[in-house]
């Protein structure tokens, strides 16, 4: 309705505007309906529940609350806390969707019935009307209406208290005026003219007592019935009831309601006038006998009946409040009437004749340009008494800092201070003449001054006096200047000058700068501008570069920030900066989580274990938080109901501590046997050990060192063992279970050799102290610093690539344990291969497998026994069919082939290692040993083919060093 250009900015926009059509762009295909999806506010696909999709949905996709379904409420009741009786409401089982706008129990702020308007619900009315029509007794819900509870809205009640009655309009009572707007309203009426009865009504109306006022006519609210048909605007189809049965007095079938007519109907003042006298009337039926006029019977619709202009009507139609307000705003009398709406005026009050002037609102004063809306209390601060940091902080907090605690008057400032205030750059170089003087001269001067002061002035010559005065003046000036300089050194103006001096230096010209405000592009741009101004040597770079559109406060803040940033990212550092690229993503993971509690010293525990003092010494107890769900599954109340984490409590540690890595490699290498070379240690540590090593935790490496340090008794045992080897074998005290039957001298030889090797191994194993490793790791060089690491590297190479993932091994030998073989990890993913590998050894010799010295069948931790032994083969062969035997033979053959292959492999290895010029002593020895063992195995197996019993007994007979050591231990124990 409003076509004024002024009012365009008053428009309120609803909804999202359509994207502007680009002419060049090809038309996008609309998404077909089946591909359109609806998501709810959480981004889940919304499911429409209805007859086809399955009805009621509450919570987590037809479950309640949790993924698992119902979360059973636990009943807890104790003496202290009695369980409250819980009553579940329906709302407890609803989710936000149900409580939402379209849910089953919408929760919105709505007017309650008490405050609802008295207007009838049209839909309900219609429904009631229909039901009343269909009801057996028509109109039986009229009764219902009668018996309706007396509930009126608050507004109605208020109005009633003010004297309003139902059926009346609201407003001041008025005298009925004879002159009405009927004439102009009637002009537009077509069809049947007003009847005589109407006139009589009017005539009745004219009889009005002078001093009687009437309430204004009630206003029927405009009904905004939605247009749900396909007819034209304002068209109403024929109502069959009305047309055929000549319903309630509506004779004229008016297909179009005119605007004014409609308005009248809206306002309800057309009621009596439109009431026809009855009988069949209308164009279609011609003119009846009762009709008086015949003018408009064959009415043809004319365009003149329609409005050609929107809003062209005169504003008397009472639409005030429903349409755009402009056209009524010109009415000035309205304001006078407004007061009358007060209705019943309280006694003793009258309406004011002339209304009060409207309050004029003056615009706020324009603020001066450099006004800062923040008030600071300048701290009365004696800079001398406070530490410089505090002073600095204070000054920084104050922002624009005054140079002194007590502001000086203009005349108290000296020239440099004034210059500073004016923004002049101070002259470079010595500030006073005094600075130019030599220290000796200065002392002399001071001495002279003192002398001059001490002496009475009578003796002085004028020249002297003058010189003294000059000197004093100079000294005073120097002192003042220096003190001032000290004071002002922290303050901002000097900071800006410093930055200026720094940035305007030629070194800074080419330098790449840091971008401190990279997050905010505009700010960074301003900062860049500021920097460039600085580089050019501009006097007040800040003022030029700051955004004038910003508030003063923001500008002030930004000014400080820029100066500070410029100070921080000085060109000196920016010369470094071009060597680095800035990180694309922020890396704030500088810390790693480390278990809070750590296990105690392993050495102590080992000692305790040796002494069999189990209990407190060997036990560590940690706080441990189980998962909530785990507790639920175990039917156990959570021990820490409020716990937010799971597992052992952890704390943050600095990730990039060198020693973290050092210990990490230690523990890792401990886990991986002794097979770590320093060069590889760090990467494996990173991927191999998910949890970081504790800094204080002793690793097994340390234990080995400790063990080797305290190894003397062990070596003693060994030497004893060497002497007693034969006697031991004949009568092993502890384990007589399996008596060795093979020829002892040969074996003892072998054993001795083994022992020697063992010893050598142990010697090699004795590790240098941790410091050395730290030094190695710190220097990050790949050189092998000692012979000890060479052996490792050998093995390392052997193991090589296979070492991936957190693999676990037999821990290396400790003091108590017999020296376990170096256990290179084998890939866990190939157990079958292991089996195949291991079986040749078994088929060759039964002695080998239990010992576990062969590198190819070494595993982590306790191994699994081989699938079968030769004797069982025989056993089973006796029982099982010949077919199976064949199969096994095949297998055997295979194994043999494999074995040979392995031999070749070993040889190859040897060659390779020689090529690499590694000593590989240990390994070679091992290989020798293996060879020997295999040879032994071969011979024994050939023996075994002769007699079955001795074969297996060979196993324990060919005593492993471990067993030997164990026996030694038992020996030692007995001695003890």
């Amino acid at each position, binding site marked *: 309705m409003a076509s004024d250009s002024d009012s365009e900015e008053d428009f309120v926009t609803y909804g999202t505007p359509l994207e502007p059509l680009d002419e060049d762009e090809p038309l996008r295909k609309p998404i077909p309906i089946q591909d359109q999806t609806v998501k709810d506010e959480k981004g889940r696909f919304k499911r429409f529940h209805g007859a086809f999709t399955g009805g009621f949905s509450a919570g987590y996709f037809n479950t309640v609350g949790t993924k698992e379904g119902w979360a059973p409420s636990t009943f807890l009741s104790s003496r202290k806390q009695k369980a409250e009786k819980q009553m579940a409401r329906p709302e407890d089982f609803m989710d936000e969707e149900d409580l939402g706008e379209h849910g089953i129990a919408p929760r919105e702020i709505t007017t309650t019935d008490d405050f609802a308007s008295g207007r009838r619900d049209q839909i309900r009315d219609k429904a009631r009307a229909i039901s009343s029509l269909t009801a057996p007794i028509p109109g039986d819900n009229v009764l219902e209406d009668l018996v309706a509870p007396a509930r009126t809205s608050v507004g109605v009640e208020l109005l009633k208290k003010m004297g309003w009655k139902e059926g009346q309009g609201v407003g001041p009572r008025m005298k009925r005026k004879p002159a009405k707007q009927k004439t102009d309203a009637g002009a537009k009426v077509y069809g049947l003219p007003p009847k005589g009865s109407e006139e009589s009504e009017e005539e009745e109306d004219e009889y009005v007592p002078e001093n009687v006022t009437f309430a204004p006519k009630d206003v029927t609210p405009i009904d905004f019935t939605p247009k749900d048909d396909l007819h034209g605007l304002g068209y109403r189809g024929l109502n069959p009831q009305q047309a055929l049965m000549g319903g309630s007095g509506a004779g004229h079938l008016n297909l179009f309601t005119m605007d004014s007519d409609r308005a009248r109907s809206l306002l309800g003042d057309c009621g009596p006038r439109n009431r026809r006298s009855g009988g069949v009337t209308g164009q279609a039926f011609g003119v009846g006998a009762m009709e008086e006029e015949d003018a408009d019977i064959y009415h043809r619709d004319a365009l003149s009946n329609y409005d050609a202009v929107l809003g062209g009507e005169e504003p008397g139609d009472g639409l005030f409040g429903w349409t755009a307000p402009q056209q009524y705003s010109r009415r000035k009398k309205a304001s006078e009437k407004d007061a009358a709406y007060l209705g019943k005026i309280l006694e003793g009050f009258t309406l004011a004749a002339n209304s009060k002037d409207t309050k004029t609102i003056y615009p706020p004063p324009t603020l001066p340009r450099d006004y800062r809306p923040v008030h600071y209390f300048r701290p009365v601060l004696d800079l001398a008494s406070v530490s410089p940091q505090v002073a600095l902080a204070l000054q920084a907090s104050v922002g624009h800092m005054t140079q002194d605690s007590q502001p000086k008057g203009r005349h108290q400032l000296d020239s440099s201070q004034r210059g500073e205030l004016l923004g002049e750059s101070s002259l470079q170089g010595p500030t006073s003449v005094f600075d130019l003087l030599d220290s000796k001269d200065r002392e002399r001067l001071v001495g002279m001054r003192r002398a001059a002061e001490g002496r009475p002035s009578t003796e002085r010559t004028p020249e002297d006096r003058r010189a003294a005065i000059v000197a004093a003046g100079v000294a005073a000036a120097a002192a003042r200047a220096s003190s001032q300089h000290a004071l002002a050194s922290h303050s901002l103006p000097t900071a800006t000058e410093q930055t200026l001096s720094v940035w305007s230096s030629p070194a800074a010209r080419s330098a790449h700068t840091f971008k401190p405000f990279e997050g905010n592009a505009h700010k960074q741009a301003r900062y860049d501008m500021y920097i460039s101004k600085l580089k050019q040597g501009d006097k007040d770079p800040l003022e030029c570069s700051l955004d004038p559109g910003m508030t003063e406060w923001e500008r002030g803040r930004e000014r400080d920030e820029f100066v500070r940033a410029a100070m921080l990212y000085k060109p000196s550092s920016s010369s470094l900066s071009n060597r680095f690229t800035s990180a694309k993503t922020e890396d704030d993971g500088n810390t790693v989580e480390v278990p809070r509690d750590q*296990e105690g010293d392993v050495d102590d525990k080992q000692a305790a274990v040796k002494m069999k003092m189990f209990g407190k010494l060997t036990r560590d107890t940690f706080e441990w938080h*189980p998962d909530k769900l*785990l507790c639920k599954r175990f039917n156990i109340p959570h021990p820490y109901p409020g716990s937010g984490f799971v*597992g052992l409590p952890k704390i943050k540690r600095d990730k990039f501590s060198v020693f973290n890595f050092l210990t990490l490699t230690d523990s890792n290498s401990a886990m991986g046997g002794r097979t770590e070379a320093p060069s590889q240690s760090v990467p494996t540590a990173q991927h191999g050990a998910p949890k970081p090593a504790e800094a204080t935790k002793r690793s097994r490496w340390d234990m080995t060192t400790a063990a080797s340090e305290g190894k003397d008794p062990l070596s003693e045992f060994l030497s004893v063992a060497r002497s007693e080897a034969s006697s031991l074998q004949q009568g092993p005290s502890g384990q007589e279970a399996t008596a060795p039957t093979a020829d002892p001298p040969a074996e003892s030889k072998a054993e001795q050799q083994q022992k020697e090797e063992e010893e050598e191994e142990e010697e090699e194993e004795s590790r240098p102290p941790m410091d050395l490793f730290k030094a190695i790791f710190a220097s990050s060089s790949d050189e092998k610093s000692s012979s000890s690491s060479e052996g490792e590297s050998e093995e390392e190479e052997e193991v090589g690539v296979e070492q991936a993932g957190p693999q676990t091994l037999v821990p290396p030998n400790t003091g108590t344990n017999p020296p376990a073989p170096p256990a290179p990890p084998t890939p866990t993913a190939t157990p079958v291969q292991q089996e195949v590998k291991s079986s040749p050894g078994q088929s060759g010799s039964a002695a080998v497998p239990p010992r576990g010295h062969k590198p190819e069948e070494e595993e982590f931790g306790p191994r699994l*026994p081989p699938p079968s032994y030769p004797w*069982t083969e025989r056993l089973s062969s006796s029982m099982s069919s010949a077919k199976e035997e064949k199969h096994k033979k095949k297998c055997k053959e295979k194994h043999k082939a494999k074995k040979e292959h392995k031999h070749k492999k070993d040889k190859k290895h040897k060659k390779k290692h020689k090529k690499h010029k590694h000593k590989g002593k240990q390994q070679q020895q091992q290989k020798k040993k293996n060879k020997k063992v295999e040879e032994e195995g071969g011979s024994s197996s050939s023996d075994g083919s002769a007699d079955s019993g001795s074969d297996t007994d060979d196993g324990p007979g060919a005593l492993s060093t471990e067993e030997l050591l164990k026996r030694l231990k038992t020996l030692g124990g007995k001695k003890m």
Partner: protein
Amino acid sequence: MREQLKALHFNQSGGLRAMAFPQPKLQAPQLPQHLLRTLDCKQGAVRAVRFNADGNYLLSCGSDKSLRLWSVSRGTLLKSYSGHGYEVLDADGSYDNSQLCSCSSDKTVILWDVATGQVVRKLRGHAGKVNCVQFNEEATVMISGSIDGSVRCWDTRSRRPEPIQILDEARDGVSSIKVSEHELLTGSVDGRVRRYDLRMGQMHADFIDSPITCVCFSQDGQCTLSSSLDSTVRLLDKSTGELLGEYTGHKNTGYKLDCCLSNKDTHVLSCSEDGHVYYWDLVEGSLSLKLLVGKAVVQSLSFHPTEPCLLTAMEGHVQVWGAEPEDTVKEEPTETDA
């Protein structure tokens, strides 16, 4: 040494107070020492043999990737469960015999439906081969321990592919796990027996120093038994960690061998690499029986939950041992069946 032993006995009296002391006269015949039958499993080496919850059935874990269910009394194969990618290392049955769980070198844990033999859930997550697996009391959680040093608790109720919780405190492979009503007992190659008490929210680590091969709870739940690679089986007091008994004589230096307690906590049993099963008197610590099983390594054993009946696994065979010889025992199963 003797004084030490005496001291140990004193300790024992404290720790064993709650145990049910059996009549000493009945002890000797109750030891299962008569071979009732030998099952040729034909599934490669039997890595583990386990009774089910009521002891009527046994599970054999084969190195041919299959898991088999047998009737103990008849010695017949009931079902073979295949679905693992490598050898099966451990298995357990649920309390209601409706489900089985097994773990394998293929790094997976599988939940089986007993009747259909279908894989109900295959859980991947371990980084290495899975050494041991156990149901909890209500078969709502499967606990598995792996060579990767982690213990993972898998939910059998939900379809979540991730474990409920990962216990990664072990610094080396986890070789054995036992679950009680509210506790998890894990033995690790790093030489520690860890006990996670869910009820108290505590984790106790007992240092044994030698790689642990097997851990057990005693039937009364007061003690823990742990065998380690130093050829020793130790009985520790659960609450304090004190040593109650030490059992030696067998040989266990390289392999992951099982140990267990007899059904009435009277004896400690352990496999040995010399082909015997060793029986020690729990209180005295003396070797009461050395049962010859065969010449190879006795890899696994399992004691009947209620009766004196023992299962041993050696290579491809499972042996069933009873307290009485075959003919007398034969009546018993009919009784139990009825």
